[in-house]
């Protein structure tokens, strides 16, 4: 349960970034998980050079922010104007490029970032959890709160939310929407980077594991519904827990299938809701 929660907290970060970009720019970023892996490997590299992984989160986030900015300038900007499927496919191409480059640079081995924390024993040793998971949970909460505060209170956050609601009206009122888009995408990349370092500490890094995070982020955002931030966080924590239990009950090989199955069930459920609404209207 606690393990599930800490995994879910990471999912929450990734899904939150996805929801942000989706809501503001209408780009469905399939490279989300690969950005996570990229951040993780950057953190891994920094940790090798003696930087403590928790401190490494900050430079990784900054680097990923820059990377996101460049990506936005060369591709995402053009994608926004085109149709929705384009964004899926273009980011899919991006996902392939990132994962394969990572594979060539770091090799297909599974890596972890060693953080050097011990075990935490609760209830007289009946429950054991590594310290780093607790810390990771706290870190995720911290980053998420910072994001929410930024969006709520700051001027830029207001501009982002305005653009999400109605880009044309925002432009009329003097918001530089292009800047908002690029900021949103870069922020998302930074979030993913931070999540990546945390993943590296509590879990494993592997160039091809990114797609799993992308799929989970999609599951979470579709389950919660767009623009429903508390929903995203609850859904993410829920998914983390469900996944832990299903992996435990059905066996680890079905874990991926469970997630995908959940996605389908949610999509179906949504279509049924829509149909019922339509019937009610008629």
């Amino acid at each position, binding site marked *: 349960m606690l393990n599930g929660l800490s995994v879910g907290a990471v999912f929450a970060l990734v899904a939150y970034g996805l929801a942000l970009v989706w809501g503001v720019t209408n780009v469905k970023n399939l490279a989300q998980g690969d950005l996570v892996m990229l951040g993780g490997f950057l953190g891994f590299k920094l940790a090798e050079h003696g930087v403590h992984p928790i401190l490494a989160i900050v430079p990784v986030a900054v680097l990923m922010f820059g990377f996101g900015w460049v990506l936005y300038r060369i591709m995402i900007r053009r*994608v926004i104007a085109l149709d929705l499927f*384009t964004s*899926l496919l273009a980011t899919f191409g991006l996902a392939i490029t990132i994962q*394969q480059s990572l594979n060539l640079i770091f090799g297909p081995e599974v890596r972890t970032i060693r953080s050097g924390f011990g075990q935490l024993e609760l209830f007289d040793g009946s429950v054991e959890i590594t310290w780093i998971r607790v810390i990771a949970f706290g870190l995720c909460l911290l980053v998420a709160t910072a994001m929410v505060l930024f969006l709520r209170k700051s001027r830029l956050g207001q501009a982002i939310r305005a653009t999400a609601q109605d880009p044309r009206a925002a432009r009329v009122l003097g918001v530089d929407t292009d800047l908002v888009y690029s900021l949103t995408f870069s922020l998302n990349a930074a979030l993913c980077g931070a999540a990546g370092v945390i993943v590296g500490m509590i879990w494993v890094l592997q160039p091809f594991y990114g797609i799993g995070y992308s799929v989970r982020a999609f599951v979470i955002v579709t389950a919660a519904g767009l623009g429903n931030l508390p929903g995203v966080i609850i859904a993410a924590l829920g998914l983390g827990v469900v996944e832990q239990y299903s992996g435990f009950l059905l066996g680890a090989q079905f874990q991926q*299938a469970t997630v995908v199955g959940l996605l389908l069930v949610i999509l179906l459920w949504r279509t049924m809701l829509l149909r019922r609404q339509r019937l009610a209207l008629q």
Partner: protein
Amino acid sequence: MSARQKLLHLALLAAGIAAPFVFPSHSVQFAVFWVFVLFALTWDIVGGHMGYNSLGNILFFGLGMYVCALVQIGLVYDIAEYTAANGAIRIDFTDRQYFEGLALGLAAAALVPVIVAALLSRILLGLRGPYFAIGTLGVAIAAAELTNAWDYVGGGQGIAMPVFPGAPGMRERFFYGACMIAAMACYLFLRWLYSTRFRLAINAIRDDEDKAEALGVHTARYKALAWCISAFFLGIAGALFGNMTGFVEPLETAYPTLTFGIFMVAMTLLGGKGTLWGPVIGATLFYTLREVTWTYLLGWQYVALGLLIIVNVVYFQQGILGWLRARRPRWFGADAS
């Protein structure tokens, strides 16, 4: 059909027949080319003409492959025992047994995906836009994972296919011919299909589904039918491909969502979606590019592929035919007036 078109078709047919004799050691690679043409053509029915961008069509390819393999083996042997032995059991087929098994397997490999497509269409084709793309992608990944975990069909170990009887070198030629015939049959069928009302209906769905429905197009039926046609040819392609490689395995050969599954989209977009020749041209170009990068950029080939997709999608959306159509409308029968 004008004389020039006839000549072009005949020339291509001749080149197709001559290819395995001129380069006998490359027959399998050439056969893969025809499979690529099939991929692009079938993807374009639903993705290009109907506007439903599926990322999971590879599902039918893998289904066809597995169904065919199971029929071929199941006709003469106990499947569970065969797969449990991990290829240690070698069945000696007589010629007649082999070809009967293959024919039945192909029939089943065409039928089962169609049935699955019809069932799935009730669920998935209700989704629109990116939800459809993600939903289909999800189904394909789930199918791969489930097959991977299902020991009865060999799980992650895969199934060794029956050995082709006959002289060495015949196998490659046989399956090359089969793939070529399948691709050409698909092309000719679609050529006829796109000259009927069917194309108008699915194009109407692409342009505005609600209006099409309001005008009396039975959209659900057309959508399901289009997807079933895709599934039919993909199933056959899968069965042939499985027999040609001689080994069926869930993640890399049967349901390669991230390679073949995306290739088909990339090829169609490269050539120009929503046309008949676009997918064929796209497949040809993509196939050539792939062979070149696989030969000269080994290791970086997937990076090159990812970049190709990005550049194609972001900067060159209309594809080669779309670009040509904009530049030279007359070639496409559009009058300047």
